[in-house]
């Protein structure tokens, strides 16, 4: 790609369920579309394609919109900064350029909530969704012992992927108490597809009221110490996949001035954010799963391309899946114990190697940052500031540009 400047009617950020649904809906209008994604392949986290992944035909059908003549798909591409009122600065592994748009649809998805515990920086420890993502990209797991831990429905999906890859998943540790899970299960009749999914993913290794205490090993993970009910035990394993739920990706929205609430992008019934010309859909507007993301993406695509009247018909379905999202949220609310796993010497900031004790005694994020350099490394606080928000209730920092590490040559374009 050699152009200096790109132009489109509608720019869609993200090619997961919401982004693909938005593209599909908007493509019916004849608008020119650009879809960008920082991953090398489309599908987002849930439909991540890879060398060993066999996607359902319905999902492959969804990808076809990326081949339509009015759409340009930019994979492996990151957003570095705003470059004017309706323009963004982008880079991929080779090039940098500015893209102008009339309407912007943010489908930035969610990342995992990764919380510190002793040993969490050891090679062999990953997030739960992370293990699944690495697997889909070809990570070998055959014969390895895997412990999956944390909270939320993603644990079962991750464990199932690991089993399919030939791993021995010895435990799936869900921090939520059994009573909450039982309540959740009895309410599932309203979403029959979710019952089928749960039955497919069910495993005898699953334990409620259980969580990781410590990852053990010298140069690499060798075992995990866990709390299961009232007992503590040690499990030898080659991998620990530990994620404590999902957090909406709101950095770009926040940088563009969109209002956030409860850590998610605020949108109206037409998926419009508080900034004119900027819409948002899917997990970045509140974690709700792929079904909700598909509906929200479709609404956003219709609204952005002047087909708002067609979007109204989708409201009931959106409410149906929003109700499911609410059930998930209350069921998998984090217990205080899992917010207290770090010891004083446990690193909280993995980029600058800042210990928990250096941060916890500070009054807030900015003070912690000034005193300790936490959040000043390559991830720019995406991991540690998010953890600090969960652990201490600190407000997240304002986004700084470049939004992700970028090349000097890219910044000079601006």
């Amino acid at each position: 790609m050699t152009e200096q400047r790109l132009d489109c009617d509608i720019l869609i950020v993200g090619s997961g369920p919401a982004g693909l649904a938005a593209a599909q809906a908007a493509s019916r209008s004849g608008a020119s579309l650009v879809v960008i994604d920082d991953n090398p392949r489309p599908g987002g986290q849930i439909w991540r394609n890879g060398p060993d992944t066999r996607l359902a035909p319905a999902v492959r059908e969804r990808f076809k919109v990326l081949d339509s003549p009015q759409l340009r798909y930019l994979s492996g591409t990151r957003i570095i900064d705003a470059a004017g009122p309706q323009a963004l600065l982008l880079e991929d592994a080779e090039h940098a350029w500015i893209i102008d748009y009339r309407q912007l649809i943010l489908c930035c998805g969610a990342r995992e909530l990764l919380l510190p515990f002793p040993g969490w920086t050891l090679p062999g420890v990953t997030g739960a969704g992370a293990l699944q993502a690495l697997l889909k990209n070809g990570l070998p797991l055959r014969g390895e012992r895997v412990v999956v831990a944390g909270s939320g429905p993603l644990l079962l999906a991750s464990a199932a992927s690991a089993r399919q890859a030939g791993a021995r998943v010895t435990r799936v540790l869900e921090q939520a108490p059994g009573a909450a899970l039982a309540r959740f299960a009895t309410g599932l009749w309203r979403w029959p597809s979710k019952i089928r999914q749960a039955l497919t993913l069910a495993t005898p290794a699953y334990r409620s009221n259980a969580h990781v205490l410590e990852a053990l090993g010298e140069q690499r993970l060798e075992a995990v110490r866990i709390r299961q009910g009232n007992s503590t035990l040690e499990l030898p394993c080659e991998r620990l996949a530990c994620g404590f739920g999902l957090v909406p990706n709101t950095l770009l929205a926040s940088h563009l001035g969109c209002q956030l609430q409860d850590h998610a992008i605020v949108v109206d019934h037409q998926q419009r954010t508080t900034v004119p010309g900027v819409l948002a859909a899917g997990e970045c507007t509140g974690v709700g799963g792929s079904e909700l993301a598909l509906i929200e993406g479709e609404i956003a695509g219709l609204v952005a391309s002047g087909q708002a009247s067609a979007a109204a018909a989708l409201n009931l379905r959106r409410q149906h899946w929003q109700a499911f999202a609410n059930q998930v949220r209350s069921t998998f609310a984090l217990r205080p114990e899992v917010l207290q796993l770090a010891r004083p010497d446990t690193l909280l900031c993995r980029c600058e190697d800042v210990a928990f004790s250096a941060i916890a005694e500070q009054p807030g994020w900015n003070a912690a940052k000034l005193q300790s350099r936490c959040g000043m490394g390559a991830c720019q606080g995406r991991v540690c500031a998010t953890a600090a928000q969960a652990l201490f209730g600190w407000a997240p920092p304002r986004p700084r540009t470049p939004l992700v590490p970028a090349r000097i040559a890219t910044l000079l374009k601006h």
Partner: protein
Amino acid sequence: MIIYLEQQALTVRDGLTVAAALAHSGDERTRRSCSGAPRAPFCGMGICQECRMTIDGRRQLACQTLCREGMHVERSL
């Protein structure tokens, strides 16, 4: 295809990310932290930057970079 990991030829299947190729090599480390501890891919989705490596002379994320024939990959050790 063949990629070069620390100048050593490594045969990998098509479609693998550099992160996956590292694991196939038997040593999944990507970098040493600023206090000297080994690190490996962690978030798997381009957020945590633990897997930043020098790939064909540029700093890139191993978890979001697909292997290409003849690619040179260096750890930040």
